[in-house]
């Protein structure tokens, strides 16, 4: 007997009406849950939130760029369970109306979380909430979706609406290790005042790189400007100015970033942190 998979999906899309001024479209972004059936042990789960994004629209990465809001994933798990931080596939840059730079996703993306759910609590719900802002060149639309999952049913019925999330795992930045290259310099060049400082990062690669991008992960109320990325052979130099906007925030002690190396046929991303 096929075991019914009790996947409770309470997807409430909170859609703010677009005005009479701009045409209302059907929700441009939808969110759904996908579960990877090939997970590694009986206690672990790899669950993704899949965003389908209409052409001409985008949602934002954990650092959105000049405007927009980071997509948010909030998870609550049964006592004794664990959940990883959300795993973000490497985003793309896009240019918004007026030349404002954004960082995020177009088309489709799956944000992942890894869960460990012991046998004793597999009948208890895992709750996942996603919030996002989807924007086109003309309008932005906030969205929200909530899901409640029962781990026991997911584990017993691996044939139910599932997907191989391996391809999305492969799009997550790997930690920068010596196999690929390293940060040889992470320097504060100058402190203009207590809030503004200039920095330089130097990456040295094992192979010559032709197209390198660097994406910072900034908390709110910090700003990066004058970002310049120069690649020559096996060396990439990143210069930027970091500014703390809010006088009440502490200065950052370390900065996280993703460096993306692209060619005509491939795109590899590496995450790293460095002390400021």
């Amino acid at each position, binding site marked *: 007997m096929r075991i019914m998979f009790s996947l409770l999906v309470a997807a409430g899309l909170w859609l703010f009406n677009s005005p009479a*001024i701009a045409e209302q479209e059907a929700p441009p972004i939808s969110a759904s849950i996908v579960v990877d059936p090939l997970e590694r042990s009986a206690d672990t789960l790899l669950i993704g939130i899949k965003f389908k994004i209409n052409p001409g629209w985008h949602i934002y990465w954990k650092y959105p760029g*000049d405007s927009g809001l980071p997509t948010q994933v909030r998870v609550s798990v049964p006592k004794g369970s664990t959940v990883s931080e959300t795993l973000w596939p490497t985003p793309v840059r896009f240019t918004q109306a*007026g030349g404002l730079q954004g960082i995020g996703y177009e088309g489709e993306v799956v944000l992942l979380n890894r869960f460990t759910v012991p046998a004793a609590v597999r009948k208890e719900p895992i709750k996942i909430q996603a919030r996002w802002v989807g924007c086109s060149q003309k309008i932005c639309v906030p969205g929200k979706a909530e899901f409640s999952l029962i781990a026991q049913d997911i584990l017993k019925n691996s044939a139910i609406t599932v997907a191989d999330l391996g391809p999305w795992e492969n799009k997550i930045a790997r930690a920068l290790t010596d196999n690929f290259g390293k940060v040889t310099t992470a320097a504060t060049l100058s402190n203009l005042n207590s809030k503004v400082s200039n920095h330089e990062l130097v990456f040295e690669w094992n192979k010559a790189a032709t197209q390198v991008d660097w994406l910072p992960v900034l908390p709110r109320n910090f700003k990066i400007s*004058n970002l310049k990325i120069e690649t020559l052979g096996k060396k990439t130099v990143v210069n930027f100015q970091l500014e703390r906007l809010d006088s009440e925030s502490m200065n950052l002690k370390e900065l996280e970033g993703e460096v993306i190396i692209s060619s005509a046929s491939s795109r590899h991303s590496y995450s790293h942190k460095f002390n400021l």
Partner: protein
Amino acid sequence: MKGIILALFLTLTTSFALADTELKIGTAAPDFELVDTAGAKHKLSSYLGKIVVLEWTNPGCPFVKRHYRKGTMKDLASTFSAQGVVWLTINSTHYLKDEELKQWSEESKLSYPVLNDADGKVGRAYGAKTTPHMFIVNKDGKVAYSGAIDSDPYGDESDARNYVNTALKEILSDKPVTVTETTPYGCSVKYKS
């Protein structure tokens, strides 16, 4: 003939810079003259000696709509107008026409003018990135605050801080503004490309 081997090095330099100005706190607010939906002209420098709040808006933006449903800006404008604060709402969305802005102003029962900057020159001069994006200009014509209206982009925090409210109170009490700049949130300003 000796063969000459040329070693070609590919140098790729990428620079990222905003198309707009980044206003510095404490510098002179760029002067401008814009016309409001009633046809009246507003020149910023004519308000020298007064505190001026500039609110970048787009009536179609969900973030603006949420704040106008809640009365965030209207309540602030009303509270502080009694203390001489001038509130100017500015549109830099290139496709919005005067009639549409006028309709929105009337439907929202705004007590402050809506200025049309459809060509985006003033927005770019200020580096306005989002709607809303708030600026406070001090009595001496200098920028005292730039950024978000509050600390609650999704509108669901019970203890959200209203940065504009706090800054205005501090300025009116002759105290330094403690939070002079924050990251604005909202829809990107739809400038003419």
